[in-house]
């Protein structure tokens, strides 16, 4: 029969440090962001989003990371399946700090101009919390 431990909080034996199970390996924040950048559909450890401009938004964390060296990664859902030169979207993390990240999506138009573009960003970050 498998053993089951019922417990509400896990800490290391010294009573304060994180247990090895969660240290480093669990994502510390994730979010699914509305395409228009106005709000978070679902999230974990994200307190707010600011819609900075078309295709540019900043997510702030509830609990900050220990520094800016955490590892944000992105996905995005741009809309219905399409292809062509106007749909070569590129999402990237523009700035990273302990308390927030700025996400950007853009594409290059046929005349070479960079066009910022709203997408349904999906984000997560691993690292150490403060």
């Amino acid at each position: 029969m498998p053993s089951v431990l019922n417990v509400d909080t896990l800490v290391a034996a010294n009573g304060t440090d994180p247990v090895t199970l969660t240290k480093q390996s669990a994502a510390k924040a994730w979010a699914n962001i509305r395409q228009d950048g106005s709000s978070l559909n679902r999230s974990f450890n994200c307190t707010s989003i600011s819609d900075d401009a078309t295709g540019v938004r900043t997510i702030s964390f509830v609990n900050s990371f220990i520094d800016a060296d955490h590892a944000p990664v992105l996905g995005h859902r741009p809309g219905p399946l399409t292809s062509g030169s106007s749909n070569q979207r590129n999402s990237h993390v523009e700035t990273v700090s302990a308390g927030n990240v700025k996400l950007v999506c853009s594409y290059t138009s046929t005349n070479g101009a960079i066009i910022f573009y709203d997408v349904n960003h999906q984000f997560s970050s691993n690292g150490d919390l403060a």
Partner: protein
Amino acid sequence: MASILKVDELRGIVSAGDITVTSEGGAATQSLQQGLAKAWVGFNTITSTSIFDSHNVASLTDNGTAYTTINFSSNLNSTGYSLTASAGSASFRICLDTVGSNTDLTGSCNTYATRTDNGSGLDFDKGSAAIHGDLA
């Protein structure tokens, strides 16, 4: 000497699916369950859609060039989860969109790969995806 607790399963008392852990810096506490990836997969789509390794992924569906459905073993509890994905090719730079009828489902999600130089769809050598959210 480090203390080691040997146990097969952890459950919360107040809520079976909610256990709090302390941050690395000790300044905060937050949920253990919500930080864990609920599914991940490494896969390719070149000759046939196949899985290198995975967690909570039952199968992949090849919907045609560039377009893949990831089917979960255990469903998410809503469609508002976070899907992050990337892909690589020996020949082209790739953007891996997380799309599919513009809607993800609780039991599956979709990826679509496009060349960054001309926007056309293509299959790829190595892709990876991770899903964070709440399980049903």
